[in-house]
């Protein structure tokens, strides 16, 4: 995540200097934010944690020789063993290695979190951009539609949508979460666009004869995207938690897929006598969510000092 901020900040800086009146201020927001971020312990801590999680998610095989996707790696005779040199986190009810399963579970969490964030940011952001810019009937229509989505409790709504699919995998979970989450991005983008729309540089661009798409994407979008980035980063953590919750309820990922929520659900029956198979995925889940929420906090403080 830390790398994605830097290049975009620089790109915006160059794009921004070409604009007449407000440009220097808009450009300095991004470079200021990056400069500010690099010196925040909160940002450095979360970036290190996220980097570690991403490495585990991408190459879990680097850290364990056990392949939990292979059913032969489990030995029912060795169920619920305590922590040992052979099994760092012990074994679960089916005799599978909890350490290996926890590491392999990272990928699905990250994939659901990232893809849901991207879908909601792109869909909510684009619809919000168009609705805020066009105003009138388009705006009214989409605003009413989002009101309906806001009134539906999200975890129950996701549960319903997933029940329609019957199969649960990372893509159906992504879809279910994104359907219910895009209205939030929509509202934030729309509000930011409406504020940006009346600025002098937009009036100037219009006076110079810029087309509507050009005004939207070159002038308004770079100046309205900051709050969306902040909310998306924080939401990434909550999407990961939501995936675990849905998998725990039995409508998210299903076995043989590995998911922290599913591991918690499986370990639940014997939890009081053998807590390790539940506590370790729970710890990794909490750390991952913490990392993204910390990052979101740091990015928000850097981008909008007023919100602190």
């Amino acid at each position, binding site marked *: 995540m830390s790398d994605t901020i830097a290049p975009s900040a620089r790109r915006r800086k160059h794009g921004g200097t070409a604009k007449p009146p407000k440009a220097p201020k808009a450009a300095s927001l991004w470079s200021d934010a990056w400069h500010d971020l690099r010196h925040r312990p909160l940002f450095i801590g979360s970036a290190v944690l996220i980097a570690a999680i991403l490495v585990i998610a991408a190459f879990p095989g680097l850290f364990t020789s056990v392949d939990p996707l292979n059913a032969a790696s489990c030995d029912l005779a060795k169920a619920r063993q305590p922590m040992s040199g052979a099994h760092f986190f012990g074994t679960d009810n089916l005799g599978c290695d909890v350490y290996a399963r926890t590491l392999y579970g990272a990928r699905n969490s990250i994939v659901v979190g990232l893809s849901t964030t991207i879908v909601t940011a792109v869909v909510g952001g684009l619809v919000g951009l168009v609705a805020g810019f066009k105003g009138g009937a388009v705006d009214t229509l989409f605003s*009413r*539609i989002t*009101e*309906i989505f*806001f*009134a*539906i*409790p*999200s*975890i*129950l*709504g996701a*549960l*319903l*949508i997933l*029940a*329609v699919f*019957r199969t649960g995998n990372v893509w159906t979970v992504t879809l279910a979460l994104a359907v219910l989450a895009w209205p939030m991005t929509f509202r934030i983008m729309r509000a930011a666009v409406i504020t940006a729309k009346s600025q002098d540089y937009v009036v100037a661009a219009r006076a110079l004869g810029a087309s509507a798409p050009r005004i939207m994407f070159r002038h308004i979008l770079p100046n309205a995207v900051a709050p969306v980035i902040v909310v998306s980063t924080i939401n990434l*953590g909550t999407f990961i*938690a939501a995936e*675990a*919750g849905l998998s*725990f*309820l039995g409508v998210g990922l299903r076995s043989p897929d590995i998911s922290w*929520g599913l591991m*918690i659900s499986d370990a*639940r029956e014997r*939890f*009081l006598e053998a*807590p390790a198979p*539940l*506590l370790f995925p*729970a*710890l990794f*889940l*909490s750390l991952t*969510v*913490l990392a993204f*929420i*910390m990052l979101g*906090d740091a990015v928000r403080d850097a981008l909008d000092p007023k919100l*602190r």
Partner: protein
Amino acid sequence: MGRYIIRRLIQAIPVLLGATLLIYAIVFALPGDPIAALAGEKRMDPNIVAILRDQYHLNDPFIVQYWYYLTGMFGGDFGKTFAGVPVTDLMAGKFQVTINLAVTALVLEAVIGIGLGLYAALRRGRPADSLILASTLVLISIPTLVTGFVLQLLLGVKLKTAGIDLFPIAGVTEGWRSYLLPGFVLAGVSIAYLTRLTRTSLAETLRADYIRTAVAKGLPRRRVVGRHALRNALIPLVTFLGADLGTLMGGAVITETIFNLPGIGQQLFSSVHLREQSVVVGIVTVLVLVYILANLVVDLLYAVLDPRIRYE
């Protein structure tokens, strides 16, 4: 005031219609045949199937079914389950559990959240403030799923073996005490948000001119903070709490599952699997109504908290 309430209620109608239509359509799209599921493994007499299908309007097109449902609902009739029980009867007991849970959570949230936020705001920049801020960050990050099981293990089991039996860990057999632990678990993330919100809101109010005036008049600190600052800082907090009631009720399903509470979350879960449209839509409709009404009450409370706010 009266006209404002009526206008708000009228504005809520499209939201209610849209939400029920959406949920009805999703349940309509669920795979499987509810009547076949009713019979289980046995083959049903085709005549009985035909009668049942007719009785539940299952042969009509989607929009006609929805119309039947809607007209019934406005007359207070939420329909019957496929087992013949009126949905309102079924929901009443389940909602009681979830309301108890959500209200316990809301009270814990208000007391702990505002208390901690107040303490932090009055000690801004000191170690206590930093400690509270850091712990809110951690509390926000730990999913309900994790707090639920960890607290169940620590408070329910470890403490009990140590001889201190404070919190029942499952079921609803011990009255309001049964709801304490699940209520806290459900409120967890909200407590953290409310603490932060209280701290920010109060810190801002404490900088206002009228606070300086109150201090300059020589009012005791307790009165300055309680009467002048807290009351004015309360508006965003009330908004948050009001909006949170609906969130807590709708988000209770995981907590209900962990603590074995027979609430609406669990009911919805099993009804989705049985494809009981009337129950699923009924539950969601009531939740949408709670959301709309809670927001309305919050808006009306503004005028009580801040006399400068007038409606119309």
